[in-house]
């Protein structure tokens, strides 16, 4: 078990193994997203309160979930990188950030499009859920800007890891904001006491979308980390051998 991880942490091994997972993740992700989209748009019944507008849930919830998932991966990798001095972990954190930023943007945008017809507003300043999610978008921007500003990779890794860890306090705030404070946003539907508060016919497409988005994200993350590893190791012999082998 440990030898597997030690091997995985070595860049050439990671580069080799990750390549095998990407196509599987991509295919599984696209299949699940395809099923979820069709079932969510056309086969799931309309909601008793919101009618067909509720179907935005099938893109909004997976995007919001991934925005937090990506940040968690980034923060945990940053901690591993700081404590164990593992370069691959820093590469994972750096690869997760732009993806997390995209999904945070998507969660905010689809939430806004959903809020207009249902709540009666595109955006409400002061709502704790909306505000904490927006803060996360700025945390991602700050993380990427900090990395881009420091030329020395080791220094950039350390500084950005500290920022990622400090910002991680926002993750529980996002999740519990709707329980701790009064909010325009409703409470959690899926992760709650007494099980999900959603009809099975509406739930299955949602679960398919959540898993589909996750696999899609996994494929993208692996691809980004591979590029990151390659650019960090550009002086290494294995990179040279590989590139020469490819061009020959």
């Amino acid at each position, binding site marked *: 078990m440990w030898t597997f991880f030690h091997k995985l942490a070595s860049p050439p091994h990671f580069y080799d193994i990750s390549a095998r997972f990407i196509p599987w993740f991509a295919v599984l992700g696209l299949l699940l997203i395809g099923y979820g989209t069709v079932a969510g748009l056309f086969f799931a019944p309309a909601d008793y309160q919101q009618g067909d507008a509720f179907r935005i849930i099938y893109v909004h919830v997976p995007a919001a979930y991934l925005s937090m998932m990506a940040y968690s991966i980034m923060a945990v990798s940053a901690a591993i990188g700081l404590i164990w001095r593992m370069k691959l972990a820093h590469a994972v954190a750096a690869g997760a950030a732009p993806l997390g930023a*995209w999904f945070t943007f998507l969660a905010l945008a689809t939430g806004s499009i959903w809020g207009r*017809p249902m709540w009666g507003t595109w955006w409400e300043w002061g709502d704790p859920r909306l505000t904490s999610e927006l803060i996360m978008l700025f945390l991602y921007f700050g993380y990427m800007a900090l990395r881009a500003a420091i030329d020395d990779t080791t220094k950039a890794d350390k500084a950005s890891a500290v920022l990622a860890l400090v910002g991680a306090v926002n993750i529980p705030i996002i999740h519990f904001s709707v329980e701790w404070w009064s909010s325009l946003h409703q409470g959690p539907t899926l992760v709650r006491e007494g099980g999900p508060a959603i009809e099975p016919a509406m739930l299955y497409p949602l679960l398919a979308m959540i898993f589909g988005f996750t696999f899609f994200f996994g494929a993208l993350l692996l691809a*980004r980390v591979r*590029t990151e590893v390659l*650019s960090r190791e550009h002086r290494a012999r294995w990179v040279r051998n590989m*590139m020469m082998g490819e061009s020959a």
Partner: protein
Amino acid sequence: MTEMFAMGNYGAYVWSSFGLTAIVMLACVAQARSRQRTVYQQIETRLKAMESAE
């Protein structure tokens, strides 16, 4: 059929959400690819420079 796509007057909201999602996902893929290409090219230029120096 038209009714199915109308989404009971919420068509504009539902379809724009799904459309935006598709665009963002494609953007993610495109961004990852372009970054990969850039890094590949950088390394290749370096290796070629090394070869000609040898």
